[in-house]
């Protein structure tokens, strides 16, 4: 059984909170949920919506079609009625009940209900949630329990009361059996978590032992700052909101030099400001973890909409040449495990690591089982602390691996000299041509070593399914593509999905292996110029047959992936 529901209304009507509340009630009852949202960059007015897919199997993305539309205003119906089908239902307030929709219209006097309950108008959404629970035959007590646990004192009992009124109104005035989707509570007290990509990144950073987090607010990365700020005293982390992204990344560099794992998080504009310090970390060989949550650019662009157009920026930002790792998680679980991995790689290889997400992954929520912490271990780099014993300490000692043991300041007998200018093994400024060449080679040996670790199926590249058509993705596009391929399979088209997880070092060998023998290679990504497609040709020598791109700030939908893939397959070779 499956339900796709959409809640829409103006900013300030509580669209996101009600969406999450209803989703959590389903998660607690044993269902899998994937939920995404769209909202413009403003605090009041406009149009916000929350779109969720509830299923008894694991779901990887939202779908376009909507079974249950919960409209908190007229505009929501106008905007989204194109998603409805004959079996759909629409819950709306009496004030705009004249609209015409496909399927059943369930008119709930939400405004009267809140007035009767003496509650503020914003609680109309609770009446709508109660009505939705009634319509799908679900358990109102579970919804009430979620409200009590999560609304944290914000008119909790009024919410519950209004929800009950909405529920009872629908049960008494409508034949709920006329709506075909029914969800039953399968298991109470389930352990599953309902997490966004940002939540998972923050939890991964905590697990990885991060002790300093510095970030300047920027959508869509700010929720990481908010969550860590709330948790900082529980996990002994310093969370600082400094004057700019310039300050944020330099604070991270200073902290990690002094021995504390540290991270910053931003979006494209903030990352632009961090570029000079990114190169500094590369040159000084200081570990750094940067979360780059992409949004649609260029410039201010669409601040609250998704994009995958910063891939090349992440790979090439900052002057000169230096090694960096760029990792793109494709779902909430990967966001957790790969963030832990980002910290380990940063410290073991003493280089900047960019965790590349986007608004769609960062802010969409998924139900996931609690993480397997045995798969998320802290692996420290070659650190020296306490007392150093050996010949005079050289921070940049030339080694076979390129990695120089890293003393922490305060270590007896080891003074640490970091230098953003080219330097000798001790860290003294040096312009000697042989030393300059040796230091460049040393730094790049680290990337070669990391490439050996990463260029493997299951690490740098992950393949899902089998088939003559290979669809290559990176980051959050994985979800809609996996769902789209499942729909295609029902039509008899066998295709596999190949996810590129590491963009640097690029897993060229394993990507070629994954694509070997494919009749057709198609890349799907959310940018205009096909950045991954170009990178594949450049670094792996694989030229895709087709590139399916989207650059309107919206995520892919499975239905769209199915249609566009069917189109290019039918067209034949490019």
């Amino acid at each position, binding site marked *: 059984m499956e339900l796709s529901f959409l809640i829409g209304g103006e900013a300030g009507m509580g669209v996101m909170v009600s969406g999450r509340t209803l989703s959590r009630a389903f998660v607690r009852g044993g269902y899998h949920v994937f939920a995404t949202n769209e909202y413009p960059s403003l605090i009041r007015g406009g149009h916000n919506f929350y779109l969720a897919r509830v299923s008894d199997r694991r779901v990887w993305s939202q779908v376009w079609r909507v079974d249950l539309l919960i409209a908190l205003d007229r505009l929501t119906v106008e905007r989204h009625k194109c998603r409805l089908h004959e079996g759909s239902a629409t819950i709306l307030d009496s004030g705009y009940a004249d609209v015409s929709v496909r399927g059943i219209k369930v008119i709930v006097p939400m405004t009267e209900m809140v007035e009767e309950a003496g509650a503020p108008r914003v609680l109309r959404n609770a009446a709508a949630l109660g009505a939705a629970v009634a319509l799908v035959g679900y358990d109102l007590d579970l919804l009430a329990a979620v409200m009590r646990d999560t609304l944290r004192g914000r008119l909790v009992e009024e919410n519950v009361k209004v929800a009950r009124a909405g529920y009872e109104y629908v049960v008494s005035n409508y034949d709920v059996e006329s709506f075909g989707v029914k969800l039953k509570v399968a298991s109470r007290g389930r352990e599953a978590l309902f997490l966004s990509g940002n939540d998972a990144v923050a939890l991964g950073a905590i697990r990885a032992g991060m002790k300093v987090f510095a970030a300047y607010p920027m959508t869509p990365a700010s929720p990481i700052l908010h969550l860590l700020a709330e948790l900082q005293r529980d996990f002994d982390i310093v969370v600082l909101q400094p*004057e700019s992204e310039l300050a944020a990344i330099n604070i991270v560099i200073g*902290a990690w030099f002094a021995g504390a794992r540290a991270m910053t998080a931003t979006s494209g504009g903030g990352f632009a400001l961090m570029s000079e310090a990114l190169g500094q970390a590369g040159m000084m060989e200081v570990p750094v973890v940067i979360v780059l949550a992409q949004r649609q650019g260029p410039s201010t662009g669409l601040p609250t909409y998704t994009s995958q157009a910063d891939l090349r920026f992440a790979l090439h930002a900052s002057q000169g040449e230096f090694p960096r790792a760029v990792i793109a998680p494709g779902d909430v679980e990967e966001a957790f495990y790969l963030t832990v991995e980002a910290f380990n790689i940063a410290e073991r290889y003493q280089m900047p690591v960019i965790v590349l997400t986007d608004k769609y992954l960062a802010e969409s929520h998924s139900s996931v089982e609690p993480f397997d912490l045995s798969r998320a271990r802290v692996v420290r780099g070659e650190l020296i602390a306490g007392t150093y014993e050996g010949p005079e300490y050289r921070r940049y000692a030339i080694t076979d691996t390129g990695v120089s043991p890293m003393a922490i*300041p305060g270590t007896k007998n080891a003074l640490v000299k970091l230098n953003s200018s080219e330097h000798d093994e001790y860290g003294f400024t040096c312009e000697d041509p042989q030393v300059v060449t040796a230091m460049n080679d040393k730094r790049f040996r680290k990337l070669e070593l990391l490439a050996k670790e990463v260029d493997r199926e299951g690490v740098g590249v992950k393949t899902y399914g089998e088939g003559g058509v290979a669809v290559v993705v990176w980051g959050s596009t994985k979800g809609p593509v996996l769902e789209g391929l499942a729909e295609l399979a029902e039509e008899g088209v066998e295709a596999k999905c190949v996810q590129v997880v590491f963009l640097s070092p690029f897993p060229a060998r394993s990507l070629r292996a994954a694509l070997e023998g494919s009749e057709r290679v198609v890349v799907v990504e959310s940018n205009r110029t096909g950045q991954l497609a170009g990178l594949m040709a450049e670094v792996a020598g694989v030229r895709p047959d087709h590139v399916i791109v989207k650059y309107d700030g919206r995520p892919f939908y499975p239905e769209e992936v199915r249609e566009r893939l069917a189109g290019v397959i039918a067209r034949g070779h490019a």
Partner: protein
Amino acid sequence: MVTLEDLATKAKFRWCPGCGNFAILTAFKQALVELQVEPEKVVVIAGIGCHGRIVDYINVNTIHTIHGRVLPIATGVKLANKDLVVVGFAGDGDAYAIGLGHLPHAARRNLDIKYIVHDNMVFALTTGQAAPTTPKGMKTRSTPYGTVEEPINPVAFALMCGCSFVARGFSGDVAHLKELFKRALTHRGFAFIDVLQPCVTFYNTYGYFRRRVYKLEEAGHDPTDIKLALERALEWGDRIPIGVFYSVERPTLEEQLPQLRGPPLAHRDISDIDVSRAYPRFR
């Protein structure tokens, strides 16, 4: 026992003979010796400009960072390990042009870090362009018709930023400079020192300042009064005050964060953090 020899490095000096930077380096090393600060406990951060080479000439932990970012780097170091003595050195281009935006915020935080500005009133390493403290009308390579912008007043600015310790030194008086550094190092909180540092090649001000400077300590100045401090800060003409303008005790950032109690963050055990303690909020 820490000696001046312990603080010397094998690097060859590459400052002009007579450069005001020598006085700052000497005074700072003397201050460390007199206070007996262990070299491994000290982290010096320097920016870009002639002053930046100070990291090569002093045998402590050092970071030669990029232009203008001395303060945020220092902030990160101190947060990670509050037991370290963290001292930032910056040029006037570093501190008052490209990196000025960091100063008010470092002052607001009042972390226990020190910020020493080599203020030679000119861009020297880039061969003599105007700086934010260049006097109005001065001809430089980038202002052949004379500067048209008013210079900033670093001491008054620092006072208005809310720095808990504000001082001005002069490279022509090493003994006085050393005392200022000692007072800054023993101040609990953020300490700012602007050092009048003549550039013998592009703007030699030794004679100019020698004729004008006087010591606040000898003038009976009360450094706990912000209004008096401002009054002195605005004095810039025939007489130029040096010394401590302002020094008060205020809670430091590190004292106000409960998560910093106990050992430094850098020394905490991170091997198996139980992140599941955060799970209930996600159900």
